[in-house]
């Protein structure tokens, strides 16, 4: 698969789900003719038009029935362990179908990959019913689940491909809109369970995931101008957690910060807090994310602003916290 700066710009235009489906899934289809894709009237929603045109027999449409979609995916995989991808909005593939996910993926460990797109507030004014802001919490509590969360379009491609290499259930969380801001402007090494350090600074370590990686990097640039130096880490794997990188941060930083477009309860911040709770003499942890209320309805930035998730707000919060 070709990766160069021009292509990275092209992938960014497609958004995370467009790149994941149009590039990543197409690549997988070439490598693995046994792979199947299940949708719930979501060929278009999951940007799978090109995939469907090329491989119509490999796409099974369950109709608008996400529970059935996940059950069918399990049945398809049950005989020979083939990889089956179930693709639609994050909110529906996880929350609507949660019992089917728990039973078939977590318990029976079928080789099913959930690809949830438009997580966080990306569904904008379709609002609460289409926002996925607790999906990591739900899936993280389930045994056997691997959870990947992409920071940009190139990483989204790498996530769906990496999910295929994991033998067992995976939830790939995609977020953002078309023209997804670039985090990785050149090819990079993606390993499940190994976080990527994108910037190093001795004062604060910021663990970010999804669309918040770009915001955290921009916040770090603002802070650097004020003399506060941040390490910024892309936590593309939420489960299993990269505890080595956490241990390093515990030893070297004065303040730990998590940033996610997800509830501050049960997501990346929750996972880090759980890890720290068993340690002694750890730096303070500030969890930035979706706070415990449903915000006013509107576009992506409007929602982010209400929860303090834009780069300037993140920088301001870190400044305040570091001076406490």
């Amino acid at each position: 698969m070709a990766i160069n700066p021009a292509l990275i710009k092209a992938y960014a235009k497609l958004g995370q789900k467009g790149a994941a489906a149009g590039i990543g899934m197409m690549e997988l289809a070439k490598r693995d003719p046994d792979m199947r894709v299940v949708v719930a009237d979501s060929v278009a929603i999951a940007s799978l038009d090109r995939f469907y045109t090329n491989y119509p027999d490999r796409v099974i449409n369950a109709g608008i029935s996400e529970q059935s979609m996940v059950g069918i995916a399990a049945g398809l995989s049950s005989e020979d362990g083939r990889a089956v991808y179930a693709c639609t909005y994050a909110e529906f593939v996880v929350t609507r179908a949660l019992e089917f996910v728990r039973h078939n993926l977590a318990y029976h460990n079928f080789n099913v990959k959930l690809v949830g797109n438009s997580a966080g507030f990306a569904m904008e004014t379709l609002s609460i019913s289409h926002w996925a802001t607790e999906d990591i919490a739900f899936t993280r509590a389930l045994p056997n689940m691997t959870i990947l969360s992409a920071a940009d379009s190139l990483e989204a491609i790498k996530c769906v491909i990496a999910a295929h290499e994991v033998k067992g259930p995976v939830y790939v969380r995609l977020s953002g809109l078309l023209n997804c801001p670039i985090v990785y402007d050149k090819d990079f090494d993606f390993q499940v369970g190994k976080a990527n350090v994108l910037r190093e600074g001795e004062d604060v370590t910021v663990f970010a995931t999804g669309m918040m990686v770009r915001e955290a990097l921009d916040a770090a640039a603002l802070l650097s101008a004020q003399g506060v130096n941040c390490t910024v880490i892309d936590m593309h794997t939420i489960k299993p957690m990269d505890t080595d990188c956490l241990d390093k941060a515990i030893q070297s930083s004065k303040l730990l910060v998590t940033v996610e477009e997800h509830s501050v309860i049960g997501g990346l911040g929750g996972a880090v807090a759980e890890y720290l709770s068993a340690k002694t003499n750890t730096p303070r942890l500030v969890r930035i994310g979706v706070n415990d209320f449903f915000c006013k309805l509107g576009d992506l930035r409007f929602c982010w602003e209400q929860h303090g998730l834009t780069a300037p707000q993140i920088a301001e919060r870190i400044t305040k916290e570091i001076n406490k």
Partner: protein
Amino acid sequence: MNRKRLNEEEIKAMCKRMRLHAMDMALAAGSRGAHVSGSLSCIEIYAVLYGAILNYDLDNLLWNDRDRFIAGKEHARLAEFPARAEMGFYPVEVLNSFEENDGLLVGHQLKREIGNEYGSMSLGMEMSFVVGKAIIAKQTQQKYHVYCLLGDAECEEGSVWESFISAAHYKLDNLTVIIDRNYMSVDGNTEELMAQLDMQKKMEAFGWESVTIDGHDIHQLVEALSHKPQGKPYAIVAKTVKGKGVSFIENNRSWHQSVLNENQYRQAVEEIQKG
């Protein structure tokens, strides 16, 4: 293929033994209780499936061409496990370990080596799994047929109907569903609580081939289950009596999940032996 094929008389005798095994298992379950009545309604269905219909090989229970049976209303294990024991999947004595901690027959586990092709239990969970299994069986040109048993009240779960739609849409004529129409759920009579009406008509309206039979009549069961549909999935609505064979359990809602005491056990065994 190492497998006995039973005639109708032999199946009738097997049903009697299965009911006795069910009582033994219920007694052994003790204070935990067991799903007695819902098991007794589908004894004949299980006996005919394992005695006369399903292809399997006792020398190789993982034989690729074995028919796939997936149990819905999976709490009816007092019918399911004795059927497999009777046909030689495991010794009848193994039934004594029913619900033992970490045992072979505890809970709802996926154990293909003893015939458990899936572990569903949560009602409405299995139909979509079955549809996926039947789709991939067609795509990979498998010889086996896929069977699934559902409870009638289980069909109150919406997910079942989602998958009924898909099964017809994908023309899954390698799929047969048996609905145990015992007219009862935990709280009582289905037609009073949540009327299912004419289930054959419903299935036909959903694009399935369907038939209604007496689910305790061995001959009707053999005939219906021997039929292979063409171009459509196939649903057998098997009218049954919940608790069939034991007078004080029949149509008595308090026996959905209940504790069988020694006296009740003796009376039940007596009735089954006479019946």
